[in-house]
């Protein structure tokens, strides 16, 4: 009864999505957005007409003006600096615009251009000093704050009456100040456009990535060849220009220059930036955060002003909100990854019936024997982690190594070896195509091809993204084994889409169908996922009808068949299930049957744990991986089976001292070659009654031996 509940919950409750959603970068913005919503609702309740169109338009107008400055501030904060001079720059730009318009009678477009240039130049002073001369941002902008403010005051002294006396009346200028499109203020529309561009700039464009990289670590960014000085300087210029835009709208709306223009603006802007969750340390931040921060500050200030709260209280409330938000935000940012690591792993219910007997004297096809005890060893201590082995028609033996190489051993004694190709990732399954190209699945990299003349080419490293997957599953994380159809299409398995290669035990802990089978078509150079939701799909082999593949599901302990062509196209059928161990690679045998490597054996304690997801979740949280209950992959065997799913014979090594682990095997001219991913050797076993001329891929492609 209780087990039924556990099973149903595991089946219908998408446990794993929580971690995947939290892993999304945009959840970093969650806290500011929640604060914003709370503030908006609270003020909406407290004040009548707070959300009336007129009030909203007014708020949007102010938000736009400050918003531009906040964007500029956000940019310099993300790049690792700070700009305290924004208030003074704002005032100077305001003056510049009005002076040009009212006193010098420039046309409006020229005024706009000149003001933006003015802002850019003011920012460039900061940029030069901080970016190129390496002055401290805080001190530098504090100094420019004073200088700019003094300049403004001097200019104001001589010119304020002239500006105040003029009453410009240009439709375009008025549109900037008070116009709207369908009720949306002009400033808000431009802000939206700039914000969208800013978001794309920061998240999708190279210079934006540079900005984030520099803010994260200036030294590393420099070492990676990013033009650090120029980028920083340009950020201050951009900040100046954005401030100038804000000032332009301000000038157009109010048309005044006064002693208090821009005073204290830097504090408001800084508050908005921090409140939005942009860390002052640099390297973290987004446009959405800047916008959220701006809105919070503005709503609170305006709301409190409407409520006739005195100025002092107003600031105090703002400060209190800032404090609370900052504390929550820091805790959230700091612990987000910890929360993710706690909830990401979501074990599910996985029930296997009691396994068939393997004991000596227990009978059945899996009865243990000692046939593999005397395997000869190739490359002992010289090869590390040969997951798969393959031989060509010249009897050369190829195997992967954990150094990212394909190693070639030379016949007849396989003593001499060389690095055949260096790819850089752990090579897993291998297969030859019709033209003798060697296709290799590389863990963490994808599907690669080594041409007959030893050129390394990437075949594919991505597939189509699934619509319903929260995680971006377009990248290949763990391409595992492959085989090639008659038309050249390559079917390969990807063991899991939720974890990296070295994290396979976590996938075993979850025991969810996280894997898939992917098809790569070299003719069109396209990759498509053909099957999803498989429990660690591993070995793949084209079946005798040439229209289907046999594939192994390691943690599903089963072999299945999938038709990719012919009348049953798309169908999946179980060939064998409830194996006593974990199936790995499948390869053709000389008599037309199939070899299957069983990499490890099931243990009753783990079978039970697989039926208790809660137990495994707590185990995953509380124990280090080294202490976890594991699938036993120290002992394994090789079995031969036919397409009807009957096991014909099995090959064991009871003590598994000589050749501990078997992840793959390949028959070649009367011998069976064994690979194991945790081994430092390749096994060679003489088969009785095997075809002495059998070369797998010559037979596969119909070439004479």
């Amino acid at each position, binding site marked *: 009864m209780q087990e039924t509940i556990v099973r149903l919950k595991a089946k219908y409750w998408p446990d794993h999505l929580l971690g995947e959603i939290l892993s999304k970068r945009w959840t970093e913005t969650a806290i500011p957005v929640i604060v914003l919503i709370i503030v908006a609702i609270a003020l909406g309740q407290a004040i009548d007409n707070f959300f009336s169109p007129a009030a909203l338009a007014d708020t949007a107008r102010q938000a736009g003006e400050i918003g531009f400055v906040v964007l500029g501030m956000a940019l310099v904060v993300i790049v690792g600096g700070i700009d305290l001079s924004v208030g003074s720059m704002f005032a100077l730009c305001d003056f510049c615009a009005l002076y040009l318009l009212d006193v010098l009678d420039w046309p409006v477009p020229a005024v706009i251009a000149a003001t933006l240039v003015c802002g850019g130049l003011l920012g460039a002073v900061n940029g030069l000093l901080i970016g190129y001369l390496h002055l401290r941002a805080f001190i530098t902008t504090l100094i420019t704050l004073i200088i700019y403010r003094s300049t403004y005051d001097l200019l104001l002294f001589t010119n304020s009456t002239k500006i105040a006396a003029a009453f410009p009346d240009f439709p375009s200028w008025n549109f900037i100040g008070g116009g709207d499109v369908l009720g949306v203020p002009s400033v808000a529309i431009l802000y939206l456009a700039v914000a969208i561009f800013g978001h794309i700039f920061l998240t999708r464009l190279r210079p934006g990535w540079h900005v984030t990289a520099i803010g994260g670590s200036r030294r590393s960014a420099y070492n990676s060849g990013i033009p650090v000085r120029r980028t920083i300087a340009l950020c201050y210029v951009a900040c100046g220009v954005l401030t100038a835009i804000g000032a332009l709208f301000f000038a157009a709306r109010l048309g005044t220059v006064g002693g208090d223009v821009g005073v204290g603006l830097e504090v408001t802007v800084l508050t908005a930036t921090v409140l939005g969750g942009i860390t002052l340390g640099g390297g973290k931040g987004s446009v959405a955060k800047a916008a959220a921060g701006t809105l919070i500050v503005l709503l609170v200030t305006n709301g409190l002003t409407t409520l006739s709260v005195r100025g002092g209280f107003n600031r105090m409330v703002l400060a209190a909100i800032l404090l609370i938000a900052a504390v929550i935000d820091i805790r959230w940012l700091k612990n987000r990854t910890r929360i993710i690591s706690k909830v990401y792993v979501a074990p599910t219910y996985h029930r296997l019936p009691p396994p068939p007997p393997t004991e000596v004297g227990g009978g059945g096809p899996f009865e243990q024997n000692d046939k593999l005890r005397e395997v000869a060893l190739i490359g002992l201590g010289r090869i*590390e982690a040969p997951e798969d082995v393959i031989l060509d028609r010249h009897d050369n033996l190829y195997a992967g190594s954990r150094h990212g190489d394909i190693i070639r051993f030379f016949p007849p004694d396989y003593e001499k070896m060389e690095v055949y190709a260096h790819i850089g990732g752990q090579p897993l399954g291998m297969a030859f195509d019709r033209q003798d190209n060697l296709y290799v699945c590389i863990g963490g990299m994808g599907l690669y091809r080594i041409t007959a003349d030893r050129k390394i080419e990437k075949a594919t490293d991505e597939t189509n993204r699934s619509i319903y997957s929260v995680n971006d599953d377009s990248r290949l994380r763990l391409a595992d084994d492959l085989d090639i159809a008659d038309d050249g299409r390559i079917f390969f398995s990807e063991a899991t889409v939720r974890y990296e290669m070295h994290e396979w*035990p976590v996938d075993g802990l979850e025991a969810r169908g996280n894997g898939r089978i992917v098809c790569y078509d070299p003719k069109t150079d396209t990759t498509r996922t053909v099957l999803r939701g498989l429990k660690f799909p591993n070995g793949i082999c084209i079946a005798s009808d040439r229209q289907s593949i046999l594939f192994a599901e390691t943690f599903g302990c089963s072999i299945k068949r999938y038709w990719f062509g012919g009348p049953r196209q798309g169908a999946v059928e179980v060939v064998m299930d409830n194996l006593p161990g974990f199936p790995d690679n499948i390869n053709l045998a000389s008599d037309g049957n199939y070899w299957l490597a069983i990499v*490890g*054996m*099931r*243990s*009753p*304690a*783990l079978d*039970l*744990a697989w039926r*208790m997801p809660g*137990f495994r979740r*707590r*185990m995953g949280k*509380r*124990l*280090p*991986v*080294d*202490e*976890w*209950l*594991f*699938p*036993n*992959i*120290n*002992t394994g065997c090789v079995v031969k089976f036919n397409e009807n799913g009957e096991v014909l014979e099995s090959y064991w090594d009871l003590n*598994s001292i000589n050749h*501990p*682990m078997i992840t793959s095997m390949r028959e070649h001219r009367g011998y069976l070659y064994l690979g194991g991913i*945790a*081994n*430092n*050797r390749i096994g060679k076993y003489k088969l009785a009654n095997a075809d002495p001329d059998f070369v797998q891929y010559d037979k596969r492609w119909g070439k004479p031996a």
Partner: protein
Amino acid sequence: MIAMLEDFFDRILGRGDAAITVPTFDGSLKPNQLLERAEVVGEFEAPEDLTCVEGALYIADGPVLRRLEATGWREVRRFEQTMTAICGLPGGGLAAALEGSEIRVLAAAEGADAGQAISAGGMRAVNAIAACPDGGLLATDGSTGEPYWQWARDLLNRGRSGRLLFIDPASGNVEVRASGLHYAFGVAAVGKDVLVSESWRHRVVSVAANGATRSVLDHLPVYPSRIAPASDGGFWVTAFTARTQLIEFVLREGAYRKRMMREVPPEFWIVPRLCSGGSFREPMQGAHLKTMGVVKPWAPPRSYGLVIRLAADFSPLFSFHSRVDGENHGVVAAAELDGSLYVLAKGPKRLLRLAIAEAKEALAA
């Protein structure tokens, strides 16, 4: 009340007694391979305990009591039942526990009964006997719930029914000196006090005459077992197996534990064992993965071999180990004789011998 609350929060937060951390082998418990490399003196059918009587070494091998002589092992006495503990007595006699529920006193040399069988006191899992200086016998009764052979079940049931018994061989009276011990396995007399191994609490306690217990060696990374006196006043404490975080975790997972005991054959339980690696159906832990043909000796031990030498003030001095990649595991008894330490590794059913002086030199080097 406060203690209860503390206990409650400990369990929620995984602190204190509910923590699943395991102390490391450090200091005087720093690992070595001396026990693994020790000389193998003999291999037996079902060895259980070891003792010295007047310069001769006796071993309880299932129902057979054997003595080491110049010519080899001589059968001294064969019982109908299996012995679960033996102990040499000051007068040259020998006491043996049968099936954990009966104690016999023998005249050692010819193995004849020297008194009537004692079976009072509801003895169920007597697993160690020691001679008391005032003439009585001290014995630990591991559990009143499970028989001697079912100690793993007692651990999984979080057994706390171990007892220290005082037996008067003359009258056959059995007196309970201490009870409620978390599996008592190993006893030695120290003056008026008694040293007892409390296995499931990973400690050695000293029990006073009035039954008050005091921990003298705790936070061990192992489950201590029998205690043998050393020649210069200290003690040899054996450890029949070591702790792992997985087992500590399973002990706190009631539902899994109960289902495991119900549905999984005992040899494949997640529980400490005297030997391991015999079957691939045993539970395997992450670090047990053989990499490049090597099992790491620091992997979490399913079985382990350890003897700790205690000084007369019970502080640990040094220790002999057989680590995870070794075989001499499940050390249940030790006996010092003529400068040599004889160690019974119940896992591989071997009797081992270490020359103490040489071993100490190897440790110092």
